[in-house]
């Protein structure tokens, strides 16, 4: 669970998932991100690259990082598509997927 998921807080408009095995750590997404919510990891992945990581909150779902990224599938951008409300069960799948991914 990320900060944004805590009850009572306003839900982010977007979410980010970065594949730590596909990312080569060029940093173009960090430069491109308008709300500045992407950073570089300290640990290296098994290819020896530091990789981009999502700060976990503040994504607007604009998709700019995706376009700036040279890797086909290193970044996936999610956007909040329906108004928050009770009973949004199907949303959980997407949210869990995004959360799990962002943490990797």
């Amino acid at each position, binding site marked *: *669970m990320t900060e944004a*998921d805590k*009850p009572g807080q306003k*839900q982010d408009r*977007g*979410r980010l998932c970065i*594949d730590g*095995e*596909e990312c*080569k*750590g*060029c*940093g*173009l997404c960090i*430069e*491109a991100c*308008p709300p500045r919510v992407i950073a570089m990891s300290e640990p290296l992945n098994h*290819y020896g*690259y530091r990789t981009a990581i999502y700060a976990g909150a503040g994504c607007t*779902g604009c*998709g*700019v990082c*995706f*376009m*700036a*990224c*040279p*890797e*086909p*599938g290193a*970044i*996936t*951008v*999610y*956007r*909040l*598509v*329906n*108004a*928050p*409300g*009770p*009973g*949004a069960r*199907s*949303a*959980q799948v*997407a*949210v*869990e997927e*995004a959360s799990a991914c962002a943490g990797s």
Partner: protein
Amino acid sequence: MPTESAGEYAPVQSRARSFYGRYERKEDLEHQTHFCPGCGHGIVHKMIARAIDDLGVQDRTIMVGPVGCGVFTYYYFDVGNVQAAHGRAPAVATAIKRSRPESIVIGYQGDGDLSAIGAAEILHAANRGENITVVFVNNAIYSMTGGQAAPTTLVGMKSTTTPNGRNAATEGYPLHVCELLSTLQAPAYIERVGLGDNKQIWQAARAIRRALANQVHGLGFSLIEVLSPCPTIWKMTPVEAQRWVRGVMENEFRLGVFCDRTNERAVSADLRPVTPDPALDDLPRILGVARERLPGSEAQAFTPGREIDLEVRIAGFGGQGVLLLGEVLAEAGLDAGLEVSWLPSYGPEMRSGTSNCHVRLSRHAIDSPLVASPVVLVAMNEPSLRKFDRSVRSGGWVIYNGREFPADCARDGLNVLARPFTELADELGEKRAANMVMLGALLEITGVLPQASIDHALARLVKNPRWVELDQRALARGRELYQGSREG
């Protein structure tokens, strides 16, 4: 876990469907591209893949890859792929588009590929207004080979071949491909974009999508030049390289639309006159062959019982009639209803260079026109004999133009007919007919073709009646020579 108040997230930007999920690369690298971190190619690849997805043309798209860092398009794009020789992508793309007009053909080229070795190809493809889309990735340098100067290298820019920086006095000025091509009348759309910042990147994606859409709508030739960072060869970080595109490259290569005739094309459709493809029945008339001579027609004159798979290599000096000899043989085989191939191989010289050709005649479809191990070698001089005699199959024949067959070339299982064919032809009145004397001997040795087919082939290939008559006499002389050798 998300509370009940959570809204739904859906992916809005993710891996394009036109990319493979895993790449057929080395083990452990199957989910990584081969590009360096921060390479512009990856970004351009994504734009193309996205455009293919958006236009719904994945199942009919054919990418033509270049030589250069962009070479591996076939690892990544889940579409048809052809990898062209250096600089030849526009020619290959032309062939694909014309033979499969329903396909969507994308030429992908770098600046070394397109603007140097392939400059003529792109110029003429653009000038013909081929209905293809070309994506031209310009990083102002030869990257794959380690950073040599390209035609697009900036003045003052250091490279391995311009260690003091490009000097306009000796290396000229950067080539502006968009400006150059936009002077032509045929192209439909030419735009230069960059990958220098977010705004430029979005514009580049739009331009590539538009260039592809133009082809889908049949509007004609579109080219998008993309100013693209090469952090590795430029010796910069990816972010520095991106800024360099924006701050330096863009000053030399102005961004913008250089040519847009899409509106007028949308009205007039394709400029090319629409001539319907000829029907199969029209082909004999167009090719000038009598219908009864076509392979598979009932009038096939030639039905001997035995299997035929004749592989012949004919070699000599240019000007000796090497290629014509092969052509007559192949043409006669065609006339006799056989499958044939004729593959010439010669140097740039018109005279006195070496020349040789491969001929195959078979009852079955021919897999390759190359003849590596001939059954018959026709060697019109000694160097040609020495070059190919070892390749002749055991039990095969060498027909050699010389009085004596060199002793060191003889071996068991090699049949030889050595005669001074040039002198013999001279006796007939023309020493240039030596090739036909040798062909006569070859026909007599192999016995695979009827004389009528040879007559038809000669009549088609030799226009001058005086030469036809001479060639007929030369062929007869060659047949006699072989018969004489068996009797003697």
